[in-house]
């Protein structure tokens, strides 16, 4: 039970908004030492943990090209691009992206999208551009909200798409764990099929919330005041 103190350190640290790196570092050392590891073991655990988890940081390889393109106006062009599709509102565009992300992940193409590859350079600016076209300059709070929703469309789409694919980590973990622990012969394909109902619910729920975002944006911009809303999106983009 003492080992659960590490969990409390994490919860308390995040709740009081300390720097997450320090919180996690301290929680790791505390949990390790309370759990009977020596200081050397704890250091070794941090070392092997870093070495074994490098794949979560590989998106950094896309930053030079994305950064270069952004210096040449990639985000600005993404905003301008959406201007030609008058019917594509923020909510409709993000719903479409959610669907695409789910479908591509479901056929095993998880790395096609992502916060560094697609959301920052294209999806978020397009979503913002669509909102600006309808409502003029967005107050910062609204801007943040649109970007947060763009990130959420990517994450929800990935999570509830990838599990419909046979060779994904979570499916392999389930079959690996159950087949070795309980000596059964669970087929990955049946697990993938049983992920479909939840995936469909995820699309309906999150898609509906993304569409509702349009109405929320309308309300908020009406509250900010009509004069601002009349300004053209082009000169307002920042």
């Amino acid at each position, binding site marked *: *039970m003492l080992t659960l103190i*590490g969990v409390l350190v994490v919860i308390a640290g995040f709740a009081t908004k300390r720097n*997450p*790196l320090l919180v*996690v*570092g301290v929680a*790791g*050392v505390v949990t*390790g030492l309370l*759990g009977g*590891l020596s200081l050397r073991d704890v*250091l070794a*655990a*941090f*070392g092997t*943990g*870093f*070495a*074994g*988890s*490098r794949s*979560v*940081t590989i998106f*950094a*390889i*896309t*930053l*030079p*090209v*994305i*950064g*270069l*393109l952004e*210096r040449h*106006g*990639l985000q*600005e062009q993404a905003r301008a691009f959406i201007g030609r599709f008058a019917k594509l509102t923020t909510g409709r565009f993000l719903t479409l992206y959610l669907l695409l992300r789910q479908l591509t992940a479901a056929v095993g193409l998880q790395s*096609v999208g992502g916060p560094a*590859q697609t*959301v*920052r350079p294209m999806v978020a600016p397009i979503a913002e551009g669509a909102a600006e076209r309808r409502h003029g300059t967005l107050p910062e709070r609204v801007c*943040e*909200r649109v*970007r*947060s929703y763009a*990130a959420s469309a990517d994450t929800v789409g990935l999570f*509830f798409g990838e599990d419909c694919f046979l060779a994904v980590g*979570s499916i392999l973990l389930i079959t690996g764990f*159950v087949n070795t*622990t309980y000596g059964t012969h*669970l087929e990955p394909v049946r*697990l*993938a099929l*049983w*992920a479909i*109902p*939840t995936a469909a619910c*995820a699309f309906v*729920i999150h898609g509906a*919330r993304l569409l509702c975002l349009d109405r929320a944006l309308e309300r908020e911009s009406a509250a900010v005041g009509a004069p601002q809303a009349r300004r053209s999106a082009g000169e307002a983009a920042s």
Partner: protein
Amino acid sequence: MIKAEWFYWLIGAVFLTMAVQMLRDRTNPKRRGTAAFWGLIGAGFVYSTFVVDKTAPAEPLGAAVLLMAVLAGFGFTGRGAVRTDHAQRAASAARLGNRIFLPALTIPVVAMLCAVVVKGWRIGRTPVLEPGSETILGLGAGAVIALVVAMVLLRERRPAEPLHAGRGMLEAMGWALLLPQLLATLGAIFQQAGVGRAVGGITSQLLPHGQTYTAVVVYCLGMALFTMIMGNAFAAFPVMTAAVGWPVLIQQAHGNPAAVLATGMLAGFCGTLCTPMAANFNIVPATLLELKDQYGPIKAQLPTAGALLVCTMLIMALFAF
């Protein structure tokens, strides 16, 4: 065969080069700390190769990781001045038009081709891409090819330019880039120290015997909550399945194993949507999008996660028994 480790060396080299650029950047008031932080990560990426194949001890790397946490955690890192302004970028966008999307779209297209087509290529009997690493190698190849396409399109001859641009984004992200890896480590330490067993023990004590639908709720809710603590449904799954899923839902109540386990895992994913512990999905996007509110994406996902968790319980209760 192209190996994943080569690709990690490339990323290490990129980080190290950026660290040198950071050290020289006099617009950054904390340039030394910033360069030390990213230099250590870059060196760690290379050194990790030897830790993985067990030819070097892991302890020095562990010490370096804790040093990185201290550097970023106590505010020794910062960022330099941004170089371009909005007018320049807008003018450039107007000149290039939609052609500027071409390199950006190259990344996903190449990643897709590697995962689908190149995966099957062989030279003699050896596959071209290291088996099991095709997707990350695809992302790496996509990024490199996209960079070449971009430099040709933009008539940019200096390779330092994209590195400077990428470095600016790294500096803006700061500590958030290291957090997912540190959390993966914490998960492993939790596991070694027996946190899973402790949580499993508590859960099975709370569970009333013989009530299938209560057990469904406990399993799904437990998966979500435990995932929020660990930041990862993979860590929660063996614990909750050993405590509730297998003995109660499958053995006692004769649930359909595939339905119970697949839906249970997805209940865990609902937890992942709500926790800062899943930093790579929730915190990294917030810093990449330069949000003031780090918890913005989590707030956008919270209602969806709650409703979906109820859906998983209903799906399991209705169709698994």
